């Protein structure tokens, strides 16, 4: 059995006094895609955001539980969240490039880490954009504002921006929810191509996307992890009745 890159044990998360996650246990192998599915409000995005401590931004959120990333405790008091987030990158639901040029967007993560060498930046920007499968569409206009791109292109630039810092884990919070089918398809292809180099955890509302994309699927409901298994197993032969119902769309 391979070493787990990320383990989470007994994750409990509170908004004020409200428990939103009721003890989630999940771990992840290196590489491959894990899909988190479940109805709205089931806590899957909340859980995802706990993985790189995005909840630190809000003051009424308490996170309990044991998060180990490569043997290091993510929530240890001495954890450098800045360094952590360089290793656990995140792509959001809304395509959200900064109001800069495409080049400056992708180079942002490198520049804030102090990379100044122009040729290194050029090279990393190019590889990241290629990895995100958007290079061919934007290579002639790298200094155009990223906001002038289409939604799908913006999202792939956002992915390229997250890839540029070479994270180990990529968290994707409904990355195609705001995109049209053609753009979603392109983003999905991008993610597929990256599955051998990155550990990806994706929150999605689309059953078909989860089944196409992921190696493993976890089903969340009302703050509980109902079931987790290989995607094939989950979709063909789930153990839990709730999973069966959700996947076949019998949930109200």
């Amino acid at each position, binding site marked *: 059995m391979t070493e787990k890159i990320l383990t989470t044990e007994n994750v409990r998360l509170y908004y004020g006094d409200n428990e939103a996650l009721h003890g989630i246990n999940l771990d992840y192998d290196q590489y491959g895609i894990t899909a988190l599915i479940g109805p709205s409000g089931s806590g899957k995005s909340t859980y995802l955001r706990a993985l790189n401590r995005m909840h630190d*931004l809000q003051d009424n959120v308490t996170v309990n539980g044991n998060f180990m990333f490569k043997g290091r405790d993510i929530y240890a008091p001495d954890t450098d969240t800045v360094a952590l987030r360089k290793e656990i990158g995140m792509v*959001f639901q809304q395509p*959200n490039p900064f109001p800069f040029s495409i080049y400056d967007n992708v180079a942002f993560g490198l520049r804030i880490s102090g990379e100044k060498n122009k040729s290194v930046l050029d090279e990393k920007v190019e590889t990241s954009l290629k990895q995100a499968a958007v290079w061919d569409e934007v290579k002639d206009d790298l200094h155009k504002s990223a906001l002038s791109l289409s939604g799908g292109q913006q999202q792939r630039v956002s992915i390229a921006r997250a890839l540029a810092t070479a994270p180990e884990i990529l968290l994707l919070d409904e990355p195609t929810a705001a995109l049209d089918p053609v753009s979603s398809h392109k983003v999905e292809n991008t993610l597929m191509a990256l599955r051998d180099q990155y550990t990806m955890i994706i929150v999605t509302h689309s059953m078909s996307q989860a089944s196409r994309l992921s190696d493993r699927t976890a089903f969340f409901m009302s703050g509980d992890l109902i079931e987790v298994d290989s995607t094939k197993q989950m979709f063909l032969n789930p153990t839990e009745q709730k999973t069966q119902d959700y996947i076949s769309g019998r949930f109200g």
Partner: protein
Amino acid sequence: MDEIRESLLKQSKASRKDQFGRAISFSALALIVIVVISIFYFVASKGLATFFSDGVNLWGFLTGSEWAPSQVGDNGKPLVGAAPMIIGSFLVTLLAALIATPFAIGTAVFMTEISPKRGAKILGPVTELLVGIPSVVYGFIGLSVIVPFMRAVFGGSGFGILSGAMVLFVMILPTVTSMTVDTLRAVPRHYRESALALGATRWQMIYKVILRGATPGILTASVFGMARAFGEALAVQMVIGNAALMPHNLTSPASTLTSVLTQGIGNTVMGSLENNALWSLALILLLMSLVFNLAIRAIAKKGAM
């Protein structure tokens, strides 16, 4: 049949109310437009009279450096060189905005990013309070604190452009600050999140993403402050020294368009050259505020995300 027809053709109560409301808002708008046009017409007709009926050369007016409308120069023409006031106005305005903008950005960053709670509770009301202080109070404080301070530090009388700029700086600071705060608050939350998710420190997020994204808004705030500073009369008049001389340094007495206007307009005879020349200054003021307005619009248009 006729009954139905009649009731359909009759105006409903709602549509009559609708027309009434439209009439009210339209007449309010018309009144404002008329007032604005009249002001422009009045100031322009008075201000242009200097050039058309009194035969003053426009270029000479803008660049001449001697201001003594009641006297005649060696060439037999009246001494109406407005350059000292124009330069004085621009200098105090630019200096004030130059000092105020960094302070405003700092305060706004503190209020929105570093300590939003205390910012909203304490600093917000304090800035609003500063807006409400009458300008004569600012001028009085300037007169009794800043002028003696300048006198002690730079020598001379203490009156001058630097004192005017300091008073204006405090006066426009709350305006610029509260506008900058609004701009920073309007920066979408996802910029913050994605910057942090990329491993930016809080300072990098503020400096490289938020302030960069908010630059057009901050510029607008700064120009807004300038517009206010340019038009402020009383407080400046109290500390600038009111000598219609070309300013040769920042601590010698000078004057601005507004300070000359407030001093002179009551002491001249309507229709005389002295009076008309003052109206010309007012026209310049009016045109400048128009320019500031257009600049604000242009920046806002360009920076629209």
